[in-house]
C-alpha cells in the first residue's frame, strides 16, 4: 500500500523561511537580493527535496515561479536610461520590492515567535495546581455550569474535534522517535573521520532508512554545510551526493599548523 507521507522539513516553515535562510547564508542584503543566485539555490534545494522524495508543497513551487518571474524581469533591457537604479521597471518599481516586503514582514514574526518561545520557557518554570474538586460545596440552588450552552453546541464541539483529528499530521508519533539533528550531525562527522573525510549520502541514510531519518539526515547536512564543516557535490541530478569533510575546518579542529 502506498502511503503519501506529509513530511515537512522541520527547519523550514515554508518558502519564505527557506529564502531567508538562503539570503542569510549568502550574507546578502535583504534589500538588494541577488535574485539570480538565490533563485538557482532555491531551485537546487527543491530539486534535492524531490530527489529525496520529500513532499514539496505547492507553496514552494509558487515561490519558485515568483523568483523566476522576478529574475526574468531583471534581465529585460531597460527602457529608462540615465538612471542609477539599475533594476527599475517602466513604472519605476523594483521587481523585487514586493518579495522583499513579504520577507521582512515574515522575518518580523519569526523573530517575535522566538521571543514568545523565551517567555514560554520562563513561564514553564513556575507551576500551579489543578482546581480542587469543589462539588462538595454545591448547594441546592446551584448555578448551571453550562448555562446557555445547548446540547447542539456540544455536538458541534465534537464534530470540530473529529474534523481536526481527521487531518492531523499522521507523523506525530514518528516525530517523537526521531533522533535530533545535533545527534545526526555528530554521527556524520564521526563517519567522515572513519572514512578519510569522504562519504556518500546513501551511506548515511542506509544505516536506518526510515523516512523521518532521511529528513533529519538531510537537515544535518544542510546545517553542517552552513557551518562550513562539510561540502557536498552532486555531479548530476539523481546522483548520489558526495560529502567531503571541509579541509580548513579539519585543520582548525585538529590544531594542525
Amino acid at each position, binding site marked *: 500500500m502506498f502511503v503519501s507521507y506529509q513530511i515537512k522539513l522541520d527547519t523550514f516553515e515554508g518558502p519564505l523561511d527557506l529564502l531567508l535562510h538562503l539570503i542569510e547564508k549568502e550574507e546578502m542584503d535583504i534589500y538588494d537580493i541577488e535574485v539570480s543566485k538565490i533563485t538557482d539555490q532555491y531551485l537546487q534545494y527543491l530539486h534535492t527535496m524531490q530527489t529525496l522524495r520529500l513532499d514539496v508543497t505547492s507553496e514552494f513551487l509558487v515561490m519558485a515561479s515568483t523568483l523566476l518571474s522576478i529574475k526574468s524581469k531583471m534581465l529585460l533591457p531597460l527602457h529608462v536610461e540615465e538612471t542609477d537604479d539599475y533594476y527599475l521597471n517602466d513604472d519605476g518599481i523594483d521587481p523585487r520590492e514586493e518579495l522583499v516586503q513579504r520577507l521582512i514582514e515574515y522575518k518580523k514574526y519569526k523573530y517575535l515567535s522566538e521571543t514568545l518561545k523565551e517567555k514560554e520557557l520562563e513561564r514553564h518554570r513556575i507551576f500551579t495546581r*489543578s482546581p*480542587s474538586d469543589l462539588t462538595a460545596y454545591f448547594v441546592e440552588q*446551584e448555578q*448551571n*455550569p453550562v448555562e446557555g450552552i445547548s*446540547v447542539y453546541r456540544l455536538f458541534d*464541539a465534537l*464534530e470540530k474535534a473529529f474534523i481536526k483529528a481527521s*487531518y*492531523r499530521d499522521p507523523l506525530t508519533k514518528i516525530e517523537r522517535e526521531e533522533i535530533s539533528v545535533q545527534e545526526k550531525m555528530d554521527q556524520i562527522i564521526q563517519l567522515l573521520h572513519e572514512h578519510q573525510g569522504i562519504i556518500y549520502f546513501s551511506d548515511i541514510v542506509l544505516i536506518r532508512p526510515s523516512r523521518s531519518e532521511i529528513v533529519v539526515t538531510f537537515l544535518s547536512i544542510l546545517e553542517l554545510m552552513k557551518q562550513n564543516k562539510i561540502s557536498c557535490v552532486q555531479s548530476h541530478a539523481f546522483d548520489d551526493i558526495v560529502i567531503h569533510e571541509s579541509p580548513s575546518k579539519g585543520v582548525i579542529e585538529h590544531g594542525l599548523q
Partner: protein
Amino acid sequence: MDYNSMKAIIEGLLFVVGDEGIDVKQLSTIIEVDRNEVEDIICDMQGDYKREKRGMQIVQFGDTYQLATLPEHALYFERLVASPNHSTLSQPGLETLAIVAYKQPITKIEIEEIRGVRSERPINKLISKGLIKEVGRMETVGRPILYGTTKEFLDYFGLKSLDELPPPPDFSNLEEDESLLLFT
C-alpha cells in the same frame, strides 16, 4: 539549604501536588534531608500557618501531607461555585466534555488522541464543575482512569438520559478515503 528555604520548597511542593498529597519519604528524597527533619519542619510550618492566620492548613493522613482549606471558609467556596464566572466553559473544556459525553467511558490518553493536545487541565476543570467524574479503571497496564459524565451533566443539559444526545457525527467513511482533501 537554609531552614526558611526548605519551608518554602515544602510549601511549593504541597501546593503543586494538590489533592494527591505527598508523603514524607518523597519530601525527604526531594529536599535531601532525613525524614525526622522533614516531620519537624512540617510540624513547625503547621504552627506558622495557625499563628499567621493563613488561608490554608497542612493536614496529614498516615505518612501523607496535603494542603487543605479551612472549614470556616466553606461559605466562601459555596459562593465561588455559585458565581457565574466560575461556570463558563472555555473551548477546550467544551471540546473535552463533548468527547467524554459521546465516547464514555474514556481515558485521558484517548481524549488526548482525539484532541491532539494535552488535556489534563480541561479534564480537571470539568471534574471541579461536577460535569464529569471517574467511573472506573481500565484493566490494562497502569490501570488508567476512565471518565464519564455525571447525573448533573444530564440535568444541566436538560436530558433524561444519554440517549437523548444528538446522534454523533459519523466520520468513519472520511477517515478511510483521504479526508484531507475534503477539509482543505
